[in-house]
């Protein structure tokens, strides 16, 4: 199978607003890193929810890891696809290790406790996200950045073939942003894990991803290599703000700098 995700003419409309998805076509090749960018309300999170099977589109075809992400195969879907969304507090005193081990749930039948293999998968996930030292801590007492890394560790413990992330770097400092995206890039490189991430930071999108999808008002405005999608013209039209776009000599990737609206030229 060459494509992890195939969307054809996907429509989704919210009851209370006219945002949603309008005729979205999208192909994500297996083993690629795809960034979904676009202004607030452009449909990024809705797209991710459709891919995760949380909402059923009103029209079009969705195929994720070889089938529609519907409830009929929820458990087997969870063994292939992991999702990292926004992290809220739990309200119950679970430890970090317990939360990460919940990522093993799709692999464990019923009431059984985790096996050695499950513990190893969790330990490895915690090492790579640098949260191993927090394993005894109560999840709700962590900082938001630490909670975010634990959520990524939990998703890694699922050992997925496809990982969907919604703004995973939102609460992370620049070192931890690098740790996270280096890790995703390494998993993509070494295990062929497909990564689809919604993000706002256009520099990170250009730096780590080989495909960028720019959404505008629920439709795909452009999709392709970062340097083809993130241009002065496209950003200005879709985001309706001025930017400076340049090629960085050190990284060989794009530099995107937002310009103040009050700028005098």
């Amino acid at each position, binding site marked *: 199978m060459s494509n992890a995700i195939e969307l054809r003419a996907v429509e989704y409309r919210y009851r209370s607003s006219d945002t949603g998805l309008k005729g979205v076509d999208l192909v994500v090749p297996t083993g690629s890193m795809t960034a979904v960018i676009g202004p607030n309300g452009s449909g990024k999170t809705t797209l991710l929810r459709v891919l995760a099977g949380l909402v059923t589109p009103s029209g079009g075809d969705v195929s994720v890891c070889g089938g529609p992400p519907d409830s009929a195969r929820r458990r087997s*879907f969870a*063994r292939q696809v992991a999702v990292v969304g926004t992290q809220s507090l739990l309200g119950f*005193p679970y430890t970090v290790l317990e939360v990460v081990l919940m990522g093993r749930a799709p692999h464990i039948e019923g009431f059984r406790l985790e096996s050695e293999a499950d513990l190893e998968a969790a330990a490895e996930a915690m090492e790579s996200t640098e949260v191993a030292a927090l394993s005894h801590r109560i999840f*709700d*007492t962590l900082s938001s950045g630490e909670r975010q890394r634990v959520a990524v560790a939990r998703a890694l413990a699922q050992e997925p073939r496809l990982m969907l992330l919604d703004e995973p770097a939102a609460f992370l400092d620049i070192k931890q942003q690098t740790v996270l995206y280096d890790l995703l890039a390494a998993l993509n490189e070494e295990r062929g894990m497909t990564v689809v991430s919604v993000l706002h930071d256009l520099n990170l999108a250009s730096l780590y991803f080989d495909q960028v999808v720019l959404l505008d008002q629920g439709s795909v405005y452009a999709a392709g290599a970062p340097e083809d999608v993130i241009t002065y013209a496209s950003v200005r039209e879709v985001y309706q703000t001025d930017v400076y776009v340049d090629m960085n000599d050190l990284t060989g990737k794009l530099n995107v700098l937002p310009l103040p609206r009050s700028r005098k030229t």
Partner: protein
Amino acid sequence: MTSRTPSAARLTRTELRTSLLLLMVATFVTCIAGALTGAVTLDLGQVWSVAGTDRTIFLQVRLPRVLLAATVGGALAVAGAALQPTLRNPLASPDIIGVSGGAALAAVFALAVLPSGLGQYFVPMAAFVGAASSSALVYRLSLVHGRLEPYTQILVGVIFNTFAASLILLVSAVVDMSRTQSIVFWLMGGIAVHPYPVLALVAALVGIGTAVLVREARTLDLLSLGDETAEHLGVDLGQSRRRVFAAASLMVGAVVALTGVITFVGLIVPHLLRRILGSDNRLLLPASLFGGATFLVLCDAIARTAIRPAELPVGAITAMAGGPFFIYLLRRSASAGRDL
């Protein structure tokens, strides 16, 4: 509490077995001690060896009462422990799903209209029917676009209980004084002596409910992560919530019908056990069964002996023990940071 006190950061097989074994022993010892305590203190040797008054009191009066207390305490604690993660609210108690409110309303209505001799049989039946219909009503009213929404469910439960309470006040206000007293007693919640077949029936219903909830234990852990994350991890939200709701209603309905409303057990016991044993529901749910049983047998023993030979309603004891204790826990949590 910023980290878990037991040696491991997760539930181990040894911890699961040891904790449950200790709690089982505690329940057994408390039941025996509870059955020997009362207006007359019984001698275990006498009860064991010879047929006589001690043995008769033990088998016909004390034991059925203690067994009922254990069943009721266990049922309320397990239902509370399961509903808290389902509703994602550590302060949710079994009352929140409307079961007790409906049971109380139906029982009060039966006490108000039935000839006094019939009450013994019909009040529990009315209460059970009231519990079943009110939980079905709360369930139906909590559905939003065909899905159970935790916040809606809590709000509907609270409003339903308030509504039931005002109707109960209304009924109490218009009946004569003798009936008002029996209504007040029923509402305070009390453990009485019931025949063994009735106990067996209630225990069977509680057993079925507990089995369903314990099977859902891992799902309950995942529900704590939030609806969407739980779905990402393979949980069928609708099915799991329906099962928990039905099992909790069955258990609480069955016990409330016999004992009236006994508050705080479903709140205090899981809360306390969670602090000691951690949040993993694979241990917490069975532990709550034994913890709740032990707690209510103790409270019932206090109710029987505090002002002997007279008795206090056990609901008053659980409320008196539970209220301040719960405030203490909350205050301690608040000063230690957000950590319920």
